[in-house]
């Protein structure tokens, strides 16, 4: 192929012709990529032996599922946004908002359930603001979410006044203990299954999910099909915000407390999980099943790297390399067909 054939800008209105042609064959391959990642995940489980003598074990699988829960929920929001052709860099602040609000409202004497609901609603509102600004003004999504995320982080810091970590409500923390089981399986794993089912349903069966695909494939075409582009954008970012908030709540429970940096480690893995799962970063294609596999695979790799005692930096290098390899892989596969 000749040089210089790249898509111009992320959010520039794309011409429909360049987009529609490769969708058919590429779609088929994308379905395979989700499968490939699941197979890779199953292959990597026994390979964990290389990282530590005690792997693979039942507790490793349980840990992957429990730790993968947070990434799966965050990557669900990120995946929806990527599906529309955007990217969400406000993840860290939204997760922190969810955790902080739950903790501080509960500390102020509000029942835990109400606190959780209020926190998730607040995160939904932040996401909706993202969507509103993006759809009203047509700014690039990554700049808007970067700016909103920074504003939110700064406001949180200002409001919290550098307060120490929030404590988790007792019931919430109990939910995430390994001993808390339902039919012999930790509750966190049940939560993972429920969240996976909800994610699959929302992305593939609801109007919102299908319209997100439509938006990602071609905004003009979606508009012609009478899709209210602005409303879909706002709802997609809102739902994504709710997912981040929920993840924040769960992280608060899991670690029995959380400071304002709780969301920081999740932004980059969330994008990596979505890309590894086979979603096109330009939007319009990808499955939540692939994202789930990507999230679990990254979690497993993360646990393995920690087990070998390598520095934290190697985890980042792997995440970045995985993104680039997945991009190149899907590009090459798209070219072949």
């Amino acid at each position, binding site marked *: 192929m000749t040089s210089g054939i790249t898509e111009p800008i992320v959010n*520039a209105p794309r011409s429909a012709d360049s987009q529609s042609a490769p969708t058919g064959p590429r779609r088929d391959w994308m379905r395979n990529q989700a499968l490939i990642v699941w197979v890779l995940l199953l292959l990597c489980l026994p390979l964990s032996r290389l990282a530590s003598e005690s792997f693979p074990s039942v507790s490793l699988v349980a840990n992957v599922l429990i730790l993968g829960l947070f990434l799966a929920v965050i990557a669900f929001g990120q995946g929806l946004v990527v599906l529309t052709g955007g990217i969400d860099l406000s993840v860290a602040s939204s997760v922190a908002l969810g955790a902080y609000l739950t903790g501080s409202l509960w500390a102020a004497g509000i029942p835990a359930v109400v606190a959780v609901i209020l926190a998730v609603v607040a995160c939904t509102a932040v996401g909706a603001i993202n969507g509103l600004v993006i759809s009203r003004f047509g700014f690039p999504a990554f700049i808007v979410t970067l*700016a909103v995320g920074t504003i939110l982080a700064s406001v949180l810091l200002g409001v919290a006044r550098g307060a120490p970590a929030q404590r988790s409500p007792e019931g919430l923390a109990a939910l995430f203990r390994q001993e808390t089981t339902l039919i012999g399986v930790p509750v966190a794993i049940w939560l993972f299954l429920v969240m996976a089912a909800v994610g699959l349903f929302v992305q593939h069966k609801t109007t919102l999910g299908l319209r997100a695909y439509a938006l990602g494939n071609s905004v003009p075409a979606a508009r012609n099909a009478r899709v209210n582009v602005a409303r879909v954008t706002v709802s997609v970012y809102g739902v994504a915000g709710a997912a981040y908030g929920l993840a924040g709540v769960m992280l608060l429970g899991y670690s029995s407390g959380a400071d304002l940096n709780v969301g920081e480690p999740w932004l980059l893995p969330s994008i*990596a999980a979505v890309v590894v799962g086979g979603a096109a970063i330009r939007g319009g294609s990808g499955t939540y099943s692939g994202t789930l596999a990507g999230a679990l695979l990254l979690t497993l790799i993360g646990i393995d790297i920690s087990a070998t005692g390598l520095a934290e930096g190697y985890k980042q290098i792997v995440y970045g390399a995985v993104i680039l390899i997945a991009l190149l892989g899907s590009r090459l596969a798209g070219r072949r067909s």
Partner: protein
Amino acid sequence: MSIVESLTRRSIGTNRETRIALIVFVACYGAVLFVTPYERNSYAFNNFAVLMTPLAIAAVGTTLVLITGGFDLSVAGTISLSNVIAATTMAKHPDAIPLIMLIVIALGLLIGLVNGLLVVRAGLQSLAVTLGTFIILTGIALVVLPAPGGEVPEFFALALTDPLGPVPIALIVLLLLAGACWAFSTSPIGVAAYAVGADRQAALMSGVRVGMVEIVCYTLAGGLYAAAGLYLTAITASGDPNAGRPFLLTCFAAMALGLVGFRGGSGSAVAAILGAGSLVALPKLLFAAGVEDFWSGALQGSVILIALAIPVITMRLAASRRPRTDVQEGVPA
């Protein structure tokens, strides 16, 4: 669009944007001087110039890429890496500092080249590629220096930050940088970069070597980030594997304040330098007003959104005026 056309378009645009950016900068810095008496001396001016230099250098890099229509997030990773390399090696080998600087800048150029090749030859999206390299570079920086620390010889720090007689070195650096930007934007490759960003197909058809131009821009940008990282090291005199992280936001804020178009094909790097100056001046105003430091993030974020909104709002105003005249003309016909 022919190159000649895009050249005229650009020169008109550049002048206007630079002028507006200059007005904004003069207003911001003037306000700082007005409200804070202790900023009105040569020492404070030197500090100001020093503080804005790394941001200005990095923003010029991201502007080069943005002009071709790409987004470069690797700025944060490259600055972190160059910062930790300088902070871990310079103190051990004080004699080899010029060599280390050369190696770091060469490394930055190499990173930019890889970005450019991945974007152009592999046809990947710039945002995704540079996000990947950003994460990898941050990881490498964490491996090189897991926690903030390290040091640089004092003479290296002073050589880059102390004023040379009455003239701050930083000011000389900034002026040289502005001159280089101007020279680049009038050079054949610079003109071609605007053409590529404005209309890729047209540039391709006019015989512009689109891929080569893009790769040159990414490569130069990588070198600039590394240089920004070196200057940052001279200021902080230490290393931090996350030193580059804030630049992700501030570079885009500086470009927004410099009215660099986020769709590519327009904008001027000189205006981005002025934008960086305005961005450094704004927190000083907040400080003078007695607002706590941690609100400065909110300020920078809002500044991006407001600066982005200005062209849209003026366009909407113009558009809302136009249809009315259309209707009036249309009715008699």
